[in-house]
């Protein structure tokens, strides 16, 4: 399966899971909204260009937005995540894309600790920005901070669960395109 097909499937999968499962199941609390869909962006291959990342982030976000009837809200957060992602990867694993042994960011490719830091930073970023945009229209400061912490915690929990439940079949980079 090529990267393209694989990522298209992931796109649809994350979108549907986010929209029809995580947004539908009763929330633990009104503050605790589980977000998982942006994991699609975190799993994109290293080789995707930064411009491509931005466009993909925008597409993912706007898709979720049209399901949740909040145009621009998730898209803005996703674009931010897509923009920051290369910098984080550069800091945590300062290599060129060609030097990675694996195609995508994963615990195995980066090591658990750097990978978790990578996930944590981007999750906080995503949730903080998302909540900030929501908070512009309503809410107080303490609610805002509390919401960031709780949503980040639940997102991290979901991401770790996903990583453990669905270990990706990691391919080594080869010179021949598969």
């Amino acid at each position, binding site marked *: 399966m090529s990267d393209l097909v694989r990522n298209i499937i992931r796109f649809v999968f994350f979108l549907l899971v986010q929209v029809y499962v995580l947004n539908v199941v009763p929330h633990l609390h009104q503050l605790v909204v589980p977000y998982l869909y942006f994991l699609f962006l975190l799993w994109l291959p290293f080789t995707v260009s*930064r*411009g491509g990342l*931005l*466009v993909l*982030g*925008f597409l993912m*976000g*706007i898709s979720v*937005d049209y399901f949740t009837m*909040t*145009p*621009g*809200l998730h*898209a*803005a957060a996703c*674009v*931010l995540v*897509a*923009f920051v992602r290369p910098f984080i990867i550069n800091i945590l694993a300062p290599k060129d894309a060609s030097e990675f042994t694996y195609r995508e960011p994963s615990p195995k490719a980066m090591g658990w600790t750097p990978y978790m830091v990578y996930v944590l930073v981007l999750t906080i970023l995503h949730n903080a920005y998302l909540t900030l*945009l929501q908070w*512009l*229209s*309503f809410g107080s400061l303490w609610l805002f901070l509390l919401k960031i912490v709780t949503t980040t915690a639940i997102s991290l929990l979901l991401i770790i669960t996903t990583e453990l439940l669905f270990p990706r079949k990691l391919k080594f980079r080869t010179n021949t395109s598969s």
Partner: protein
Amino acid sequence: MRNIFLFIRRYSVFLGFLILQGICIWFLFTYNRSHRAKGMGVANEVTGWFNTRYNTVRYFFRMKEENTQVHKMNDSLLNLLSDNFIARDTGQPVMRDTVKLDTLGHYRRFAWRDAQAVYSTINSDKNYIQINRGSAHGIRDDMGVFSSNGGLVGKVIATSANYSQVMSLLHVQSKVNVLLKKTGSGGTISWDGNDPAFLTMSGIPKSDSVLKGDTIVTGKFSLSFPPGKLVGTVDAVIKNSATNFYTLRIRPFANFSTLQQVFVSENIDFDEQHKLDEEAKRKVDFKKTTP
């Protein structure tokens, strides 16, 4: 130009990020009602702030013109102020019952009408009050004038069509027949021309007991006003060993310095009484001269 393209190329990702963020925010604030309301609120706040500043500057430069306009406006309004007018009250002519006998069998002798003091002095030794009613309203000479709290003020001494001149009690030539309410002894009240706060009363015999605070009322034999109306209270009893009468210092009820609304009392039978009086005097004098 080349540098601009280089710049764009170098920061293309960042620019793309900014553009996409811009689109997202635009979507957010365009299509979400709550965000839109909030955004509009902030926008209004910001534009309002700038508008206020701008207006402050603009007002500064327009101030002179505005001042001129306001001044003209004030001038025209000043001319409309009610202070410029005096209620002539021509709509209220003499309102007097032609029937002097009412159903209870009482005979009306005095009629009252209200008036406004338009001018008054207390600082001279001959103080007058002008009221806004005159002969057109039925005011005639020798009518009594009372203040709004019922204290005697004076007598009308001259009338024009719309105004009347009142001789105040604070007039050195004023002499009014009054009596001490407690004992009923009559006397005359006058003014020595010194202190506008006090009048002088004479004619109370020393056989009466007079104390400070006793009430002085108008006498029974006046042609100008009804008997028993308040005039003042005794402020001090001055004993004069040369005569057999007290000299009383009277504090008048009427506040002459703040007179505004006054009442005018009219003796309906004044003409008759006055004519009778004159007739009697003429007869007596005539008899005297031609014995």
